[in-house]
């Protein structure tokens, strides 16, 4: 019996429980009156249904993890398994083949020796499947009966269902947090492996980046793993050039939209600006690589520069800046709009013009929110991958010239992971160390930004 059928069975039993409990609750209601009931009949139904479905689903999930282990233990304990090689690839493949045939997903065995294992597998699978199904049904039945017997007129089914809903929501929100933790842990392990091969000091402070995936993995040349040019490229493109574009434009558009624009215009411009945030970054990447970068090179040629690079930090930074505008502008918009109208009125009533009011009252009052928006935007810009992969180069130059080709942390992560190096080569592992640094930096920026926003909120509420 497949998993789908089992789940459907659980739902069916749940429905039956729901109907039975509800009609029992209706019966109570008819005899003792609506006012004596602590909850509507449907809540009693939900309570019983939850007691049937939740234990069943949990057990099915548990069994689908534990079951295969029990099966293979059973097979290994059988006399046919005595002939198996003690360990290694052949043993694994024989077991897998036999299991596949036993489950009916493969027509026959490739390895004749595996044939003897098919029968034990078939037997074990059948037995544990039977045990599992029986246990699921018993569990669902017991849960349902127990819950059903608890139904009384004054039983507070409503608050109990409410509590269950809260637990479900809590679990949902934990998923994201636990995933973040999982990402962090997996990064940490690979990073530690990398730092076992390359000294962290060489990595963090070295100025030459040129890992060679083809070199010997045993004794890597630490002087080729200096990440400073990458950090510089990331900061130069993401936090300097992009922000030079995004901060003034974002701020000015926010000011225009909150203070000057007529409501009818605002109703058009604001969604249009937000659409900019929804454009896939790969589209920006095309724009940067095919339009902006050549234009910049032509300009540099026209200005008399000899041999300008066709992949410049400027092109990637400019386009990234445009991409970030909506983030800056929407945070600035929110925090300016959060400044009480009374401030604005007070300033206008003093005879200040709109722009004086903005400069001297609104922006200073909204500054923490604006700063937080900028920090979130920076953390997004330095983590941005597609635009720089397409428009920046892979050449790790340490230069302040925006027309020079530069590379960023994210570009190198892509380059290292898609390279030909084996997975335990330091060149590949360096991608994890880079990712780890990036993760810590953006986490720090977001953390600070949220703290700033929180303090700002407290000031007005």
């Amino acid at each position, binding site marked *: 019996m497949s998993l789908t059928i089992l789940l459907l069975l659980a739902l069916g039993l749940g429905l039956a429980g729901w109907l039975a409990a509800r009609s029992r609750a209706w019966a109570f209601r008819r005899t003792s009156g609506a006012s004596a009931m602590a909850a509507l009949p449907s809540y009693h139904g939900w309570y019983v249904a939850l007691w049937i479905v939740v234990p069943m689903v949990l057990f099915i999930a548990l069994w689908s993890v534990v079951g295969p282990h029990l099966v293979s233990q059973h097979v290994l304990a059988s006399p046919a398994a005595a002939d198996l090689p003690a360990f290694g690839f052949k043993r694994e493949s024989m077991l897998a083949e036999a299991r596949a045939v036993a489950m009916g997903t493969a027509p026959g065995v490739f390895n004749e020796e595996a044939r003897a294992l098919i029968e034990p597998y078939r037997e074990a699978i059948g037995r544990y499947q039977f045990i599992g199904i029986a246990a699921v049904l018993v569990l669902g039945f017991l849960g349902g009966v127990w819950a059903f017997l608890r139904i009384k007129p004054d039983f507070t089914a409503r608050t109990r269902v409410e509590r269950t809903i809260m637990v479900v929501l809590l679990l949902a929100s934990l998923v994201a947090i636990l995933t973040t933790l999982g990402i962090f842990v997996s990064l940490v392990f690979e990073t530690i492996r990398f730092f076992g091969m390359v000294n962290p000091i060489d990595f963090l402070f070295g100025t030459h980046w040129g890992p060679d995936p083809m070199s010997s993995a045993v004794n890597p040349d630490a002087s080729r793993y200096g990440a400073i040019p990458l950090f510089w490229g990331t900061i130069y493109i993401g936090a300097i050039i992009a922000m030079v574009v995004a901060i003034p434009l974002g701020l000015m558009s926010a000011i225009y939209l909150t203070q000057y624009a*007529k*409501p009818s215009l605002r109703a058009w411009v604001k969604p249009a600006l937000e659409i900019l945030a929804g454009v896939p970054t790969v589209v920006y990447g095309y724009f940067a690589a095919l339009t902006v970068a050549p234009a910049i090179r032509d300009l540099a040629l026209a200005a008399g520069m000899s041999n300008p690079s066709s992949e410049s930090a400027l092109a990637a930074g400019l386009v990234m800046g445009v991409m970030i505008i909506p983030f800056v502008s929407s945070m600035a918009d929110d925090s300016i709009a959060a400044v*009480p109208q*009374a*401030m*604005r*009125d*007070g*300033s*206008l*009533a*003093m*005879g*200040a*013009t709109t722009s*004086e009011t903005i400069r*001297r*009252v609104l922006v*200073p*009052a909204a500054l923490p929110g604006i700063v937080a928006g900028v920090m979130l935007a920076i953390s997004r810009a330095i983590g941005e991958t597609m635009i720089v992969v397409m428009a920046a180069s892979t050449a790790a130059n340490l230069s302040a010239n925006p027309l020079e080709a530069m590379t960023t942390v994210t570009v190198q992560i892509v380059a290292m992971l898609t390279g030909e190096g084996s997975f335990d080569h330091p060149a590949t592992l360096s991608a994890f160390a880079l990712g780890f640094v990036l993760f810590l930096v953006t986490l720090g920026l977001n953390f600070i930004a949220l703290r700033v926003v929180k303090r700002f909120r407290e*000031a007005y509420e």
Partner: protein
Amino acid sequence: MVTVIHPNLDDTEAKMSARDVSVFYGDKLAIDNVSIEIPTKYVTAFIGPSGCGKSTFLRTLNRMNDTIPSARVEGEILLDGEDIYRSKMDVVQLRARVGMVFQKPNPFPKSIYENIAYGPRIHGLAEGKQELDAIVETSLQRAGLWNEVKDRLEDSGTALSGGQQQRLCIARAIAVDPEVILMDEPCSALDPIATAKIEELIDELNGRYAIVIVTHSMQQAARVSQRTAFFHLGKMVEYGRTSDIFTNPLEERTKDYITGRYG
């Protein structure tokens, strides 16, 4: 219906006069054909039930209604004989001459000093730090706040108590040396003691500035004002000396309101 003006009203010197002023919010008529002379040397109180339009009318006097996109004003309002709604009028200059204090104290999130210095700075009233210091001190003294804050001028204005904040806002309005001060229910967010202080302050400012105060409290109108206008449903029902309005109202609706029969 025409406004009843008490016959014994003999104000010769009008600081501001409104002639046939109507205010619309979109299509909705909020103020219907109001004419009034605001005297130079007195405190004028606007009273009336909630929603009668008295605050709306007050805000037309320094064109604060301009900040509401749907608001439209008809008729003319004169300040020293000049229409403030004429196209050449500089709204910024107007608001420097006609200051305003709001219902809820709204100090800027800056220091006490900077709150007062705000107006003089944007209008360039002070040359150099010393003059600015002097303006700040005089304004705070006139607002009766100097002794309470002189040692902590660098503290944030928002850290003061509600009553102090409101006096700070009055001091801020005084700092640009206006000719008229409009007060929109300045005590409605304050406790009785702070209210008494503000009323005292209004008494002291009376004569130096023309003051117009909107209030919900008839006792307050009776205590601080010399002229009272009663508004009802967007119309000005009656206008006269405060003593006459409260002791000898000519209109039935005014009488009903001040004796507490509605509103």
